[in-house]
């Protein structure tokens, strides 16, 4: 095999073209990894929200909480059904919730977008993963108080602690920020169920019931019971399935991301190929010499492919490292009805995708120039100046 130092030193000698190629590859990997991290963050936010044993009970025919309406009396009866898990105090983990959408302005003249406001009782908190107050305090029922996540407070006007959010001319004071393991709950504003239904002037109706079954068998039994019982006319959906459907948004972003990444990769591959073609052309005599000395064509091919892969990997590495400052940074996108906030996630899988991208660019970009190097006629190559 041709020693690796031959290629590495050539990259150093041609530092200007090396630098330009590394920068262009790095930019492509950076943009692609950002896109992958964005999608991963959104998928994670929706995925982490769903619990295997949790059900969302909606009105029959409704596909989401916004379009669903259940009589509060009927909703309360669900808590008495068998198979619902109990909390430490022996209370059923069954949360009656009212969800409404408000159009609210974003900060910094970002226009107005839909905001989900959820009214719920204390049991609702136990059904959200990793729920905890991180600043301020929890709301007190009857006081028209609200809380939200830090990222929502940063994105929307009037959602910071001490500010007041208006719902039908009723003002809810923001008293705290919570976290819920990066789930979709962090894209909402929470207030007391009763306070919200009063403000919305719908005291008898709620949107949905969220509950946790004792076991998968009980969960399936509850689904069947609620579907079959004519009295309820309700539809219980597994939470994981519910959020899976919501994930279509993330999938769309992902596909768009892949298409954009594809175009960018194509461009970067040309940059890498151009650099390698120049390398082959300027080193024709060296290639001829190596062939004359007895290095087989396979060695030449691998040597130039290796050089191209190193070139692109350097770019890939820099591109991946450059995304790290964005890790955990909150952003948002329009969901089916409202805005959902989530964080960029650059886990090992996303970074591995970036590295793979660089390797693919290196191999594909370097392949044709390497084949050209292999196909050089030895005698012609030796005559090159």
């Amino acid at each position, binding site marked *: *095999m*041709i*020693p690796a*130092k*031959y290629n590495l*030193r*050539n990259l*150093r*000698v041609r530092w200007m073209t090396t630098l330009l190629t590394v920068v262009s590859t790095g930019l492509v990997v950076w943009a692609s990894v950002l896109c992958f991290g964005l999608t991963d963050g959104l998928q994670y936010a929706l995925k982490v929200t769903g619990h295997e044993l949790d059900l969302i009970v909606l009105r029959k025919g409704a596909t989401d909480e916004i379009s669903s309406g259940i009589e509060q009396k009927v909703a309360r009866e669900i808590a008495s059904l068998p198979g619902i898990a109990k909390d430490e105090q022996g209370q059923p983990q069954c949360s009656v919730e009212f969800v409404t959408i408000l159009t609210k302005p974003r900060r910094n003249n970002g226009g107005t977008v839909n905001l989900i406001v959820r009214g719920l009782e204390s049991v609702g908190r136990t059904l959200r993963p990793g729920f905890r107050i991180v600043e301020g305090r929890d709301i007190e029922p009857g006081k028209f108080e609200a809380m939200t996540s830090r990222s929502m407070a940063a994105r929307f006007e009037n959602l910071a602690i001490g500010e007041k959010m208006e719902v039908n001319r009723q003002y809810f004071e923001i008293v705290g920020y919570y976290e819920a393991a990066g789930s979709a709950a962090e894209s909402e504003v929470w207030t007391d169920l009763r306070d919200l239904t009063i403000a919305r002037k719908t005291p008898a109706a709620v949107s949905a019931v969220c509950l946790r079954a004792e076991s998968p068998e009980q969960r399936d039994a509850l689904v069947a019971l609620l579907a079959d019982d004519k009295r309820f006319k309700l539809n219980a959906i597994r939470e994981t399935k519910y959020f899976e459907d919501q994930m279509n948004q993330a999938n769309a972003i992902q596909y768009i991301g892949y298409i954009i990444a594809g175009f960018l990769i194509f461009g970067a591959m040309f940059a890498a190929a151009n650099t390698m073609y120049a390398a082959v052309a300027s080193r024709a*005599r*060296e290639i*001829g*010499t*190596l*062939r*004359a*000395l*007895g*290095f*087989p*064509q396979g060695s030449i091919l691998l040597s130039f492919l290796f050089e191209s892969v190193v070139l692109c990997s350097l770019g890939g590495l820099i591109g991946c490292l450059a995304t790290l400052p964005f890790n955990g940074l909150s952003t948002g996108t329009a969901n089916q009805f409202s805005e959902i906030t989530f964080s960029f996630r650059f886990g090992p899988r996303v970074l591995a995708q970036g590295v793979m991208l660089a390797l693919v660019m290196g191999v594909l970009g370097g392949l044709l120039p390497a084949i050209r190097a292999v196909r050089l006629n*030895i*005698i012609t190559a*030796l005559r090159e*100046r």
Partner: protein
Amino acid sequence: MSNSNAGETVVVVRDVCKEFHREKLTIPVLSGINLQLSEGDYLALMGPSGSGKTTLLNLIAGLDRPTSGDVVVCGQNLGQSSEGELAKWRSRHVGFIFQMYNLIPVLTAYENVELPLTLTSLSRRQRDDHVKAALEVVGLQDRMDHYPRQLSGGQEQRVAIARAIVTDPTLLVADEPTGDLDARSATEILELMHRLNTEFRKTIVMVTHDPNAADRARRILHLEKGLLVSEVVESRTKKAVQ
């Protein structure tokens, strides 16, 4: 063509023709060449530009294949060998000395000389011994860490010679080895090649335009328009060949 030496036959060129094709034209370069070289022979190929001497050298070195006829070198019929077989064969049996030295600019003198050894199964330590021995033969053991750009033309050619002999090949082929050197360096290189021939019994085939360089050879073959027209042996006796 007679064999001027009593050693083992190293090169046999039998009825060799070589043609090149350019678009629809067929250009004959060598016609009916016969030649035999024994171990320890030192042959200079001379002739005007386009006479086919470099083509003949390339055929003997396994860089090209004849259109017809046989080229058998160190027991291998080169015309019937694949590209891969030729590469392997060259790495074992041939050392190359080029007019422009053809050193790899990003490798030091030591690394350039070591390059052919990376194709062998020698250990790092064994390679080190071979490289140092080869550099000692050419008198450049104190320049082994220098890059080609840090060496004079004569020194570069000596490094190239060290690279050519480091695998201890049977045959050395040299294409205008002094063509790019000043007179003093040229003399040094020719003396070194003479030493390789007499002291190390290397069989050498050299293409040259320089009569002084050719004078160092045991045999001189003149080519014209692809034909061997005359041979001069050590006794300086000219005889017609064709």
